[in-house]
């Protein structure tokens, strides 16, 4: 079916971004001999995975027309929650994972609750809970990292299965689940509807508050997953983990074509956005660009890639 093929391509996101992405990769391959090695590519994906997980959650939220600034703090809270129960010879590894995920879901659901019950804009609600969350993480950890975690816990985010880092496997599975939710379930459809035209969604009998609650809880849950994996990867629960992650996650989503006004966006786009950021960052390190210039180059390339993407769209 010609149409569904076209649609799938459109679903895949944006030619322009793909082109920009591959252009950057190609350039790096020429400039840095180690760029295009299996090992380096695995490292990039590993490094990208935490941001990508956050960005998936944020994509759900932005598609419904909301925003979630609290994800960075959720990373910290859930990391601390998990680390607290992850000391060797205390609980089985499922307990810290469960506690972390629970904390994240609860945090996200709380965001959703306030947003749906009051008329306060999501920006303010999640900015508030971002601050609250950071404070909670510091209180729970007394401002100190929680280390000495069990090997089984450290394996989740730091291990390898058949030579592939667990982070990559988890990223792939989560990506597929999130894609499916968005594209193949009623819930996903309703996210687009709520973000595309809230009044129309309401008039069609969609329960706005339920959809929003679920979406913020999902974002919290994914941030918790990211928090657990980060904690496991660096083998410490840190109260200041995830600071500033929210901006990176939102950036990945928007670079990937999710519109801040809601109603559009795909997981593939978001993944691509996250990979773009990761590739640039890795490439700049490989090319040994000095820190000051790294920031300039990073900013320029990101704007450039999105400009290219938008040019491409307008000529289509």
């Amino acid at each position: 079916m010609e149409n569904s093929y076209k649609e799938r391509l459109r679903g895949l996101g944006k030619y322009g971004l793909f082109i920009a992405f591959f252009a950057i990769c190609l350039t790096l391959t020429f400039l840095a001999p180690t760029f295009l090695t299996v090992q380096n590519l695995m490292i990039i994906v590993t490094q990208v995975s935490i941001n990508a997980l956050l960005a998936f959650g944020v994509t759900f939220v932005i598609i419904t027309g909301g925003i979630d600034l609290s994800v960075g703090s959720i990373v910290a809270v859930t990391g601390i929650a998990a680390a607290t129960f992850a000391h060797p010879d205390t609980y089985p590894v499922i307990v810290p994972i469960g506690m972390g995920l629970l904390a994240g879901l609860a945090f996200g659901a709380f965001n959703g609750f306030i947003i749906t019950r009051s008329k306060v804009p999501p920006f303010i609600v999640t900015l508030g809970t971002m601050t609250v969350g950071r404070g909670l993480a510091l209180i729970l950890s007394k401002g100190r990292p929680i280390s000495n975690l069990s090997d089984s816990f450290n394996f989740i985010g730091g291990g390898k299965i058949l030579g592939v880092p667990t982070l990559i496997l988890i990223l792939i599975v989560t990506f597929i689940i999130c894609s499916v939710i968005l594209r193949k379930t009623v819930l996903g459809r309703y996210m687009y509807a709520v973000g595309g035209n809230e009044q129309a969604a309401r008039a069609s009998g969609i329960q706005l508050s339920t959809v929003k609650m679920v979406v913020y809880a999902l974002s919290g849950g994914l941030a918790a997953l990211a928090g657990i994996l980060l904690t496991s990867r660096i083998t410490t629960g840190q109260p200041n983990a995830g600071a500033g992650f929210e901006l990176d996650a939102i950036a990945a989503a928007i670079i990937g074509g999710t519109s801040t006004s809601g109603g559009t966006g795909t997981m593939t786009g978001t993944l691509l956005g996250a990979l773009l950021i990761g590739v640039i960052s890795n490439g700049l390190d490989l090319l040994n660009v000095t820190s000051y210039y790294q920031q300039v180059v990073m900013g320029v390339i990101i704007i450039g890639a999105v400009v290219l993407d938008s040019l491409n769209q307008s000529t289509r």
Partner: protein
Amino acid sequence: NQSASNEKSGGSDGKKIVVGATMLSMQNEFIVNVHDEMAKKAEADGVELITVDAERSALKQVEQVESFIAQHVDAIIMNPCEVEASSPAVTKALAAKIPIINVNSETSTKPSAFVGSDDVESARIAMKFIAEKLNGKGNILMMHGYMGQAAQIKREQGAQEILKQYPNLKLLAHQTAEWDRAKGMSLMENWIQSFGSQINAVFAQNDEMGLGAVKALTDAGLKDKVLVVSIDAIPDALQAVKKGSLDATVFQNAEQQGAKAIEAAVKLAKGQPVEKETLIPFQLVTKQNLGEFLKQ
């Protein structure tokens, strides 16, 4: 509000002394340790300690000192964010005739008293260790803290001083990992890709980044071949030194810094003389002398 200030200001006439403290960042483990020691000492001396967190912002710090002045505290302890930018706070406190003590690091305007250590020295110690271990020859990588911050600038300065003395030590690359363990780990992973077996040593400007580097090197199976040294001697770092994964860290004495700062504040509040400068030396921590630090 005259009465309010009278109530509080009389340290000598038996009323509780109030000390305001503004700390660089209460999310930094070492600073938290200094602060805890201050709190312990304050409790023991019957001093009321008001602590605020400047969150690494010199502007915020200046504002917090302004607030302390408005509250008529008896003395101010400042753990400066910046050498220059935190200086107006000192000027303001002195102008308001409230003694101000800098703890841990300096400002360009001289305070009533200084208790702490010189960050440049800590990096010299760390780099010197590397140079000696490598017999003055090899390839080094350096991880910076957040660019432009006082600690980053000074630790870089100390490291560069030593590097100049050893012409055969080559700085392969240096890059910021923003004091962060996860970022340090990612940076190290990328470095391993470009430099691989060329790397002989890594100097990280704090333990968090150092531990990140250790993790990345261990995962890549390179730890045995690469020396990693960092600064601060946080508990995790000491554990790593014990395990042998971190080769050395530099110990800064939080207990003494905290306690001595409160001591100075109390004396100054009572109008008693104090040492203008109390320098607390850094110490290199390796597997050999680890014992004394693990106890503390």
